[in-house]
């Protein structure tokens, strides 16, 4: 069996920095994203400290970070913190990990390609992202301080009228560069999926993960440029004195601040799906893999992905219900938004259908996936509250919104990241992650996560606005302090629990068990080659014979004595012309124990 040391491409070397190999680029995105995840998470801890103990000096790090104010987070620092927390988490942590790392790693491997269609563009994408992170980091250290207009950077606040410093300008540039990187990635992913699929890898044989990335990339290619346009205009307003978003009593015949919101949310709402679609794809595949059953209703799931993608840009107006938009427009956005619940319900039904009567293996990746279904359930359903204009009048801009989108973007998407990392870690690095540490991390995370974001829903229902430096200014918010403190404590547990993951990651990297070729006993193409894969992935371009979830097929069980079938294998051809790979099946007896000797109970297949 090949191992990491046999594979020169995976070793760290200076040349790897400028590699065009999709697997190395994936690792670069992963490293960058995880580093910023840590930074953004640390900022969240500081924000939660302020919410629990307003204007008390931050322990341990306060003196070092906020020396000028005696360790206390000042209102300006707090504003910068929540601005940068959101920006970093969305654009510089989740995007590079989920799309940059997993997209790059999985797409070519799962469709049977040797690399991306445009490897140089791929390298350029990671370097554009690096430039963006450099620019964003620089914005901390310039006169008049870090950006302070919130991650949404609403005009007029984000123009020179509201935020005159260089920091906000650098923020605009950083977001533009980040978007350029995303578009480069999207061009590559779409082209690769269209052009580089292995023979026999028809559209309806693609793993759902790849479908997720395809839809995400389409949205990225179409709507990131709209954000870019917003950034260009904002940049012009800030630097060249144009007046696209500047209006007010002092300016005659000026621009329209609401135009910025249209441009931002025309991107911003698809962005939610840009981040959740890969998560849906991953969880749809993994639930099948670990329930040892084909994904229930594959075609309906694909249809739901496509429907969400098509609808995503038509519903963005629900972010703007309180801007005084015209009634007809508001009502249309409300109804369109509610229609999204149809594909969302379909996904849930299919996930439950996949689990039902399965043979569920509770390995760590599966735990993360089940956690995702749970948190996405709460997160998705609370979205309906905000889609309803009547309820939104009260809930808009409160912590209810914060809790809702964190349950999706921070809980569900993050759990998908953990699921994907633990699942593909063996393929990426040739070693297994620790199961006990993974399970400990999962349970601590899932409990604290739900206390934090569930608590935020309650706080929002009680009426607390977002982005308040000190809620106790309002009398009606003062009784909420104990709940805020509870949320903060849970958040600190959540933060501390992530150290377990970090420890697990590095420990497994150094001394995890060597991964076999196919540790999870599944049939998608990436598991048919060594862990980690050699430089060009496939010795010979594979020929695909069926879909990705051929699990628990009684025919295969009878002929091969195992419950899975590789996509390159065909039941009728697989035996005896090709024997099963020796290592994994024989070496991991427990995996097949439950099916050994099970009576075949065939049911009609389609």
């Amino acid at each position, binding site marked *: 069996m090949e191992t990491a040391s046999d594979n020169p491409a995976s070793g760290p070397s200076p040349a790897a920095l400028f590699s065009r190999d999709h697997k190395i680029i994936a690792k670069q995105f992963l490293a960058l994203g995880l580093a910023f995840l840590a930074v953004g998470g640390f900022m969240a801890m500081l924000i939660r400290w302020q919410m629990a103990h307003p204007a008390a000096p931050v322990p341990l790090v306060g003196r070092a970070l906020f020396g000028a104010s005696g360790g206390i987070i000042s209102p300006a620092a707090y504003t910068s913190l929540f601005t940068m927390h959101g920006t970093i988490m969305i654009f510089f942590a989740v995007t590079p990990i989920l799309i940059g790392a997993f997209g790059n790693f999985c797409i070519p491997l799962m469709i049977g390609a040797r690399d991306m*269609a*445009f490897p140089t*563009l791929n390298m350029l994408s990671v370097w554009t992202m690096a430039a963006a992170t450099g620019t964003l980091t620089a914005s901390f250290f310039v006169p008049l301080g870090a950006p302070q207009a919130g991650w949404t950077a609403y005009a007029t606040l984000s123009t020179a009228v509201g935020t005159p410093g260089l920091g906000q300008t650098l923020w605009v540039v950083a977001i533009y560069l980040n978007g350029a990187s995303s*578009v480069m990635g*999207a*061009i*590559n992913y*779409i*082209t690769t999926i*269209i*052009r*580089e699929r292995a023979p026999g890898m028809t559209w309806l044989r693609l793993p759902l993960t790849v479908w997720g990335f395809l839809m995400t990339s389409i949205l990225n*290619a*179409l*709507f*990131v*440029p*709209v954000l*870019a*346009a*917003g950034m*260009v*205009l904002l940049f*012009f*307003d800030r630097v*060249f*004195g*144009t*007046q*696209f978003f500047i209006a007010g009593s002092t300016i005659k*015949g*000026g*621009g*329209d601040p609401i*135009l910025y919101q*249209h*441009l931002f949310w*025309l991107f911003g709402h698809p962005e939610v799906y840009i981040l959740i679609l890969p998560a849906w794809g991953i969880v749809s595949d993994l639930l099948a893999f670990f329930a040892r059953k084909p994904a229930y209703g594959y075609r309906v799931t694909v249809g739901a992905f496509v429907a969400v993608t098509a609808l995503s840009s038509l519903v963005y107006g629900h972010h703007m219900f309180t801007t005084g938009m015209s009634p007809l427009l508001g009502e249309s956005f409300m109804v369109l938004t509610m229609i999204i619940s149809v594909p969302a319900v379909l996904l849930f039904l299919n996930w439950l259908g996949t689990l039902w009567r399965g043979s569920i293996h509770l390995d760590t990746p599966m735990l993360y996936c089940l956690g995702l279904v749970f948190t996405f359930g709460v997160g998705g359903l609370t979205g309906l509250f905000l889609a309803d204009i009547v309820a939104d009048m009260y809930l808009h801009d409160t912590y209810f919104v914060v809790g809702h989108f964190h349950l999706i973007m921070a809980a569900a998407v993050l759990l998908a990241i953990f699921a994907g990392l633990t699942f593909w870690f063996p393929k990426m690095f040739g070693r297994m992650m620790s199961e006990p540490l993974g399970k400990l991390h999962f349970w601590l995370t899932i409990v604290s996560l739900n206390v934090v974001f569930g608590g935020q829903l309650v706080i929002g229902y009680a009426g607390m606005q977002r982005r308040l430096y000190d809620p106790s200014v309002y009398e009606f918010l003062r009784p909420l302090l104990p709940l805020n403190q509870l949320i903060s404590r849970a958040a600190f547990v959540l933060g501390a629990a992530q150290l377990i993951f970090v420890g697990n990651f590095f420990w497994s990297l150094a001394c995890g068990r060597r991964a076999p070729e196919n540790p999870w006993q599944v049939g998608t193409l990436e598991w048919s080659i060594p862990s980690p894969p050699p430089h060009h992935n496939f010795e010979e371009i594979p020929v695909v014979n069926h879909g990705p979830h051929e699990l628990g097929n009684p025919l295969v069980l009878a002929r091969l004595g195992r419950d899975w079938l590789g996509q390159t294998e065909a039941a009728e051809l697989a035996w005896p012309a090709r024997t099963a790979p020796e290592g994994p099946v024989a070496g991991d007896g427990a995996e097949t124990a439950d099916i050994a000797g099970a009576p075949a109970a065939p049911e009609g297949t389609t």
Partner: protein
Amino acid sequence: MSGEATALGREAAARRGRATATVGMAIFLGAAAMLFAALFFAYAVMRAQAPAWPPAGQAPLPRGALGANTLLLAAASLVLRAALAAARRGDGARARTRAGAALGLGAAFLAAQIVVWRALALGGAGPASGIYGSVFFAISGLHALHVFGGLLALAVIVVARGAPGVARTDRRLALAALYWDFVLAVWLLFFFGVCLR
């Protein structure tokens, strides 16, 4: 394997590569089109909300100069098409010369555009002069950046050398021509939709 088969294989691979590159370029142009569509949307909003258009007291645009510029850009696009035709005939030298000519025309467009901007800015109709200047400078500025990108690509084609250059120049020229057509289309929309109205 016979030499003939290898050549056939190479040609098939080249054809495959060309098609893949075209798909990639098409997606890129789709993305760029969304960028400009958003800018034109901003223009439409600005215009719809203005009491009068062009706003009262607005200095007129130098339509003659802008018209001449339009011709320059159209000429660059046409010459590039001719270069592509030459490359497809296998006439690498002529293809390169024509690409060079297109490069010159494109550069002239940029230079003339800078002259127009300068004149406007000095005449008190710069980007900060109001909503009209905002629209004009933002769209034409971003368009000029795209022209500049196209010039860089052409420069690479003109300067690139090598024996199997023809097939490669052919592919790159085809992509460049597609891109220049896009840049021209955006300009025409801008010229007729913004400058002349």
